[in-house]
């Protein structure tokens, strides 16, 4: 038997801005086992329900994660709205869809940039982040915040996107789409990119299913799962199909996320063209919630589950969030087995880990 040694990966590691810790058991240069440990960013915000009422919690939920912030707030608000049994105005549903898809675009572009940085393609990293800034400008234009929007409330949204801003979104999307074609060609055809991604870190469809993977990670292994198909917000009215790939390797994950950026552009165009013209943005919510609800939303990283329980008081009894990165960690540990130590940093990136979601 070869000699085994343990190499710690993280908590501080250059490929990620966030602390994640994995103990890598290696034989020579090959990883035989990966043991993760979490808890460096634990804040304990689920317990804040005891100190903040259900309206204030919408803003706390938004700060579970700064990247998919809007979708966290939306998931929480939809869960509480289900308990109240209120129907959100149609225009608010479309506005939520627009902000959610803008958030998905900026999250995926951020990831594509970090991936390029992970395999040492600095130029591509900067190009992805340059295009991402245009999406952030749209977010700032429509909501007032670059990352944290605070536009959700229980019952609807607090801001409208007027017609002139819709036109700006559409014209910026045209520019972004043109620039993304060149970036996509580099990701899909460049020799140095393919040599790092093709055939590395394979997760088969059966493994992905058994390990409960979520989001683009599962879709890259051929599982057609997308919570948007459940039809929350305005997704029920929009025409789209989950993007999947059958390869299950790092390139397939890159492929799925790149194509999802284009899918988001398409969804934004559909949502803007179909958005109803009424002026109502929110319904009034009276009293306190009483009951419980499970809500599933598709975040950029995959399926997030919100469990909310209330007992008729302003403060909720329990709020529980299951985030996609937590679901993807078993898949990551399986994927790391039998890979080269030099690939570990890149492979950890390919699940798009969001540690602040996972540890809350």
């Amino acid at each position, binding site marked *: 038997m070869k000699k085994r040694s343990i190499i710690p990966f993280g*908590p*501080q590691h*250059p490929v990620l*801005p*966030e*602390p994640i810790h994995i103990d890598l058991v290696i034989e020579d240069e090959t990883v035989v086992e990966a043991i993760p440990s979490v*808890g*460096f*960013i*634990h*804040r*304990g*915000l689920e*317990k*804040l329900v005891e*100190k903040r009422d259900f309206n204030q919690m919408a*803003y*706390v939920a938004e*700060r*579970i*994660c*700064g*990247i998919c*912030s809007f979708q966290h707030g939306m998931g929480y608000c939809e869960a509480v709205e289900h308990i109240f049994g209120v129907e959100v105005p149609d225009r608010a549903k479309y506005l939520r869809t627009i902000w959610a898809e803008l958030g998905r675009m900026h999250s995926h572009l*951020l990831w594509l940039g970090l991936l390029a940085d992970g395999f040492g393609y600095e130029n591509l990293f*900067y190009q992805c*982040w*340059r295009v991402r*800034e245009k999406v*952030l400008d749209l977010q700032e234009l429509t909501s007032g*915040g*670059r*990352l*944290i929007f605070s536009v959700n409330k229980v019952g609807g949204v607090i801001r409208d996107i007027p017609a002139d801003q819709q036109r700006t979104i559409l014209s910026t999307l045209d520019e972004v789409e043109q620039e993304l074609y060149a970036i996509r060609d580099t990701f899909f055809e460049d020799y140095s990119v393919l040599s790092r991604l093709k055939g590395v870190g394979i997760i088969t469809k059966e493994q992905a299913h058994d390990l409960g993977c979520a989001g683009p990670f599962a879709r890259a292994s051929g599982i057609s799962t997308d919570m948007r198909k459940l039809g929350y917000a305005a997704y029920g009215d929009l025409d789209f199909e989950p993007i999947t790939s059958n390869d299950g390797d790092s390139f397939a994950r890159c492929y799925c996320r790149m194509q999802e950026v284009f899918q988001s552009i398409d969804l934004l165009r559909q949502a803007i063209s179909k958005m109803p013209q009424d002026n109502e943005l929110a319904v009034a919510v009276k009293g306190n919630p009483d009951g419980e609800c499970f809500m599933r939303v598709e975040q950029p990283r995959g399926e997030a589950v919100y469990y909310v329980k209330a007992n008729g008081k302003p403060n909720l009894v329990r709020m529980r969030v299951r985030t996609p990165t937590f679901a993807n960690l078993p898949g990551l540990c399986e994927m790391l087995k039998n890979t080269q130590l030099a690939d570990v940093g890149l492979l950890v990136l390919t699940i798009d880990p*969001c*540690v*602040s979601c996972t540890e809350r």
Partner: protein
Amino acid sequence: MANVKRSPWLLHYDGSSCNGCDIEVLACLTPVYDAERFGVMNTGDPMQADILLVTGGINSQNASVVRQLYDQMPRPKVVVAVGVCACTGGIFKDCYNILGGADKVVPVDIYVPGCAARPQSIIDGIVQAVELFQKRSDEHDALVQSGKGM
């Protein structure tokens, strides 16, 4: 900035931030904002860093990590708290695992407000930190020359 003669290196540590400020710090280094034009450079090694950027509040697990990073940095050094969580604990102030802002464990020189802190304000904080670093370096040099410093 006129009297700045040095190029300090930055160290970024994510305390218990929600990621919002972290990606804004990263955005500062990309072409649109390009904080490196002020002579700073991002590094991952505390032993070579002059300015510490802390995002997020301090919790029981990372308090020792932040303190250790600060102790490992060579003198003189400057600490910038980025975002309202690093300043005071912010929206998570009442969470059971949050002890407070970065000043609970390290002396903070510059507070950058915002949730998430905007790149413009982060750059303003970095520029102030560079100036403060120059001032402290001059004082440090004077002490060394007079034979009183290390």
